[in-house]
């Protein structure tokens, strides 16, 4: 079976939750395990968050106590999912600033925005929770993160809980 979907949304932090839920809803037909769903959710969340705060340099989060509002910059993030049998391909793309040194960006704990108290673990999480990860980027043009995961390989019986 082949099934494909694409969503495009404004690069605002409110939409991080929407993107996660949309992707997990898309794959539920395959009866993935809870663990697989959690992995996919985390990986999508990392990629979309990266696009929003790094790609479009959305330094201020509107969801703060002061409720400060930044004028919206108009950037969009797209999430494409392709299911081929039990393989899930996810592409998260933005047309933001791009990454000059991809290798450095993917190092665990490396972050260009330490003032935001980010962990620098975004790409490490995507690598840990998906089977394959590929990053394409061109400074000034944008970044595309491609991830692949084989579904239905999780344990049938949860050993804990």
């Amino acid at each position, binding site marked *: 079976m082949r099934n494909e979907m694409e969503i495009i949304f404004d690069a605002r932090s409110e939409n991080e939750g929407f993107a996660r839920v949309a992707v997990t809803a898309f794959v539920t037909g395959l009866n993935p395990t809870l663990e697989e769903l959690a992995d996919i959710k985390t990986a999508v969340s990392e990629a979309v968050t990266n696009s929003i705060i790094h790609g479009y340099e959305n330094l201020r989060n509107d*969801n703060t106590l002061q409720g400060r509002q930044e004028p919206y910059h108009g950037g969009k993030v797209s999430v494409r999912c392709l299911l081929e049998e039990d393989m899930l391909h996810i592409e998260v793309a933005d047309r933001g600033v791009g990454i000059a040194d991809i290798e450095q960006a993917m190092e665990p704990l490396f972050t260009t925005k330490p003032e935001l108290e980010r962990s620098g673990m975004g790409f490490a*999480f995507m690598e840990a929770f998906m089977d394959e990860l590929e990053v394409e980027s061109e400074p000034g043009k944008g970044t595309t993160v491609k991830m692949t995961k084989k579904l239905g390989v999780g344990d049938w019986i949860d050993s804990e809980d």
Partner: protein
Amino acid sequence: MGRVLEEDFQVIDHCLMIRLPAEVDHHQAACICEYADRLLYREDVCNVVFDFENTTFMDSSGIGIIMGRYRKISCFGGRIYAIHVNRQIRRILGVSGLEKIVEVLEA
């Protein structure tokens, strides 16, 4: 998803108790850090306890929140604890290596 409320942050016996929302992501992170730091600076806080009872999702933003609070209290000998940790959260803590600085308490 639920908003982060002031009542989710309480100082009891020099311990800052933080009840985390259902989904801990970048969108919620700024708010959580602001509430937490207000109390960290104002009250006489030694340790921080993160309560994951209502939390079903956390990404690396949550790791950033924990690391940031750890930096602020560890120089005074403060410690970080986590309670009501489910399997997903435990995995996130494990993958990030944070189990070294966070003590997970069983209920």
